[in-house]
């Protein structure tokens, strides 16, 4: 009962924040609403017993990626033509209605299906006995999924090099002071 009430309140806030993200004119407002949404998603992970995923979500997504977004928005100093809300020209309203209709269909199909309740041996108590969620997820990550882990770290290295190269200022011709004989 309490779990259901908690889920519904977090879900209502989450849907509100997601709609705000998409509809605000100011990119910084959208970014802050997105930070709040990511925080709420981390709360949902915590209610599902995935402590490690919740902590990593706040650390990485809300704490690092969104800070990067905020930096870029602040540094770009956008002029008003960039600060318009969602724009729909002419026939695009049909696309909007089709999208909403399609997803509404999926939502109705899922909501009316028979609910599947959690099962299996990986219950929360069993995980607690072994040593906690972090230990079990860590073991799985480093034993079963070691290749994915290493590829992910290599991908991060590639992304670091790529973003530095792409965002670097092109070298301008700077007159050197030594030419003037100093």
């Amino acid at each position: 009962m309490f779990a259901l009430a908690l889920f519904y309140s977090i879900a209502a806030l989450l849907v509100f924040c997601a709609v705000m993200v998409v509809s605000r004119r100011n990119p910084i407002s959208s970014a802050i609403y997105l930070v709040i949404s990511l925080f709420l998603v981390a709360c949902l992970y915590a209610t599902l017993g995935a402590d490690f995923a919740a902590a990593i979500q706040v650390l990485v997504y809300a704490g690092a990626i969104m800070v990067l977004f905020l930096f870029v928005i602040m540094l770009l100093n956008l002029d008003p033509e960039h600060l318009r809300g969602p724009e729909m020209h002419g026939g695009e309203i049909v696309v909007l209605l089709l999208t909403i209709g399609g997803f509404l269909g999926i939502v109705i199909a899922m909501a009316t299906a028979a609910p599947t309740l959690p099962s299996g041996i990986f219950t929360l108590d069993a995980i607690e006995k072994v040593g906690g969620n972090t230990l079990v997820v860590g073991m799985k990550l480093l034993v079963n999924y070691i290749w994915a882990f290493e590829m992910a770290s290599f991908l991060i290295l590639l992304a670091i090099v790529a973003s530095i190269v792409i965002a670097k200022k092109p070298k301008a011709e700077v007159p050197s002071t030594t030419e003037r004989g100093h």
Partner: protein
Amino acid sequence: MGLELNEFTINLIAFVVKFAIMMLIVLHVAPLMVWFERRAPAMMQRRKGPNRVGIGPFRLFGLFQSLADAIKLIFKEEVVPDGANKFFYHAAPVFALFPALLVATAIPYGPDITIMGYRVPLSITNVDVGFLFIFAVASIAVYGIALAGWACNNKYSLLGSLRASAQMVSYEIPLGMSLIPAVLVYQTLDLNQIVMAQERGLWGVFTMPVSFLIFLICMFAETNRAPFDLAEGESELVAGFHTEYNSFKFSQFFLAEYTSMFTLSCLASTVFFGGWSIPFISNAQIAELLANPFIPGQYIAAAIGFGALLLKAAFFMWLYVWVRWTLPRFRYDQLMSLGWKFMLPIALANVVITAGVLVMMRHQIGS
């Protein structure tokens, strides 16, 4: 009445009591620090600090100066700059204060006490992933500074806030990495378990000295203090990101800064200096020694543990003030290269070497 004293009710009552006591203490650290921050350098510089403000004939070494400051800050007129974004201008101090207070809830303030057969841990939230929770929440503090500078419609504020947030984000990484060896050595993320492991064995500062040094330096950088306070340096960008904030909002930023200083000091004493434990005596022995018919020994032992933690945190706070008034400020590029080119490789090497040593030690013990 349907009130039975089961585990839930006991934990709820304990939660309320712990929360009240902790809030009282944490919120009073800031005025004390304001006073200390002016008397300690006065002592170091051979002058007297503020010692005039008094109530009646009592001057109390100038402690009432903090009270006078607080009253002034509350009653001063708030001037909102003209083109400021109203919502973020008012919301930014909240983003700065909220993580500082939330981190203070995850630190174990004393040993577990048993009330009516139920174990009550003396940290307000008893998360199993103690470390991760603390770092996750501390990384939200960057938003307060970033938004504060941007919302003021002031070039210097924006520059100051971007510098400060870049600095905080850069030093978060070695801060977290320096605590990974602690997880490796103590085999747990739970702060309470780490303190109990230190009670049985050596303090963290002896088993992981390099980690302690890195943590200490990054602690100063994370709170924008001491030699790393370029972003709010008084002679540089006016007051950096809080130029346009006055009266109560300024005091909120101040409170956030001193609170995060206090919580990071508590964290340092918990991981490296044994937290609430006293060396050479275990908690059970203290409870036995002080058993009397009036108050159960464990409550006195818990109070002593709490006092020990506060003493260690006070040492770190004094260290903060000492370092601030002794060392000159870093230049911004020096600061950033220190963080990325010096701290990060050392933290990484520390993790690798600690892991290697532990594997060798366990191989010897195991096989």
